[in-house]
């Protein structure tokens, strides 16, 4: 009996919550509401990503309403990004967070200025200095 139970346990662990994560239908209605922007992509998400989103959903009630809106508006874009892009963003975010508040504020101000540019101006910037963009993560947002 034990002999039969052991491989069954291994299989169950491998095939369900641990490796594939919860199915959409297994989420609570509250989790489904929070993660609604991901509903279409959920079946394609890896198990570890599903687990991570559930963890993020647990933090949602403690966020401010502005943070909640930001999270939901950026969720889908984040889910569509590659692991390499995730790693790059995390790395740069950590460097930004380690900066003094005035530098962070300066970068945010520069972003608002950049957002005010037209698409043509942004394209000119991207094309005008092809090779000028710093290569290593962290060098980009730390020039200020």
């Amino acid at each position, binding site marked *: 009996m034990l002999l039969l139970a052991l491989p069954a346990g291994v299989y169950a662990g491998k095939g369900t919550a641990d490796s594939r994560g919860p199915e959409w239908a297994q989420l609570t209605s509250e989790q489904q509401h929070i993660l609604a922007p991901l509903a279409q992509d959920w079946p394609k998400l890896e198990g570890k990503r599903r687990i991570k989103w559930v963890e993020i959903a647990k933090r949602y009630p403690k966020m401010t309403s502005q943070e909640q809106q930001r999270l939901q508006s950026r969720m889908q874009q984040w889910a569509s990004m590659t692991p390499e892009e995730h790693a790059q963003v995390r790395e740069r*975010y950590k460097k930004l967070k380690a900066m003094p508040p005035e530098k962070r504020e300066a970068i945010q101000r520069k972003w608002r*200025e950049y957002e005010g540019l037209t698409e043509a101006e942004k394209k000119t910037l991207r094309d005008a200095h092809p090779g000028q963009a710093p290569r290593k993560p962290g060098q*980009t947002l730390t020039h200020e």
Partner: protein
Amino acid sequence: MNEQDLAKRIVSKLDEGLTDLSSGALYRLRVAHEAALSRANAGRPGSGLAGGAWSGSGSASLLNRRVLVPLFGLILGLSVLLFWHQQQSQQQISRQADYAELDAQVLTDELPVTAYLDTGFEIWLYHHTTD
């Protein structure tokens, strides 16, 4: 004298001899008799407790060598595999919880995710810094 009479006279002579046997000789005869009966019973399958027990002990020994030892090894191997798998799962969940904390911060920060990957913004920062 016919055969029947001869047999009766022999038996009578033997019976007379029995009364003359010493107690030691009687004891040895009784022990030999019981040993012969035990051996006879052991030869028959399922005959008597002693024979059954001896037979069961042999089977257990065989079972130990050919079945129980590999079975124990298999159970041990599967247990180790299960333990290792559970450890891996726990580590993965823990790692995802760490990512969840960081990603929640990234996704709720004032600076949007696109800012970190926009090469135009990198150039803008690098070449148009007025501070």
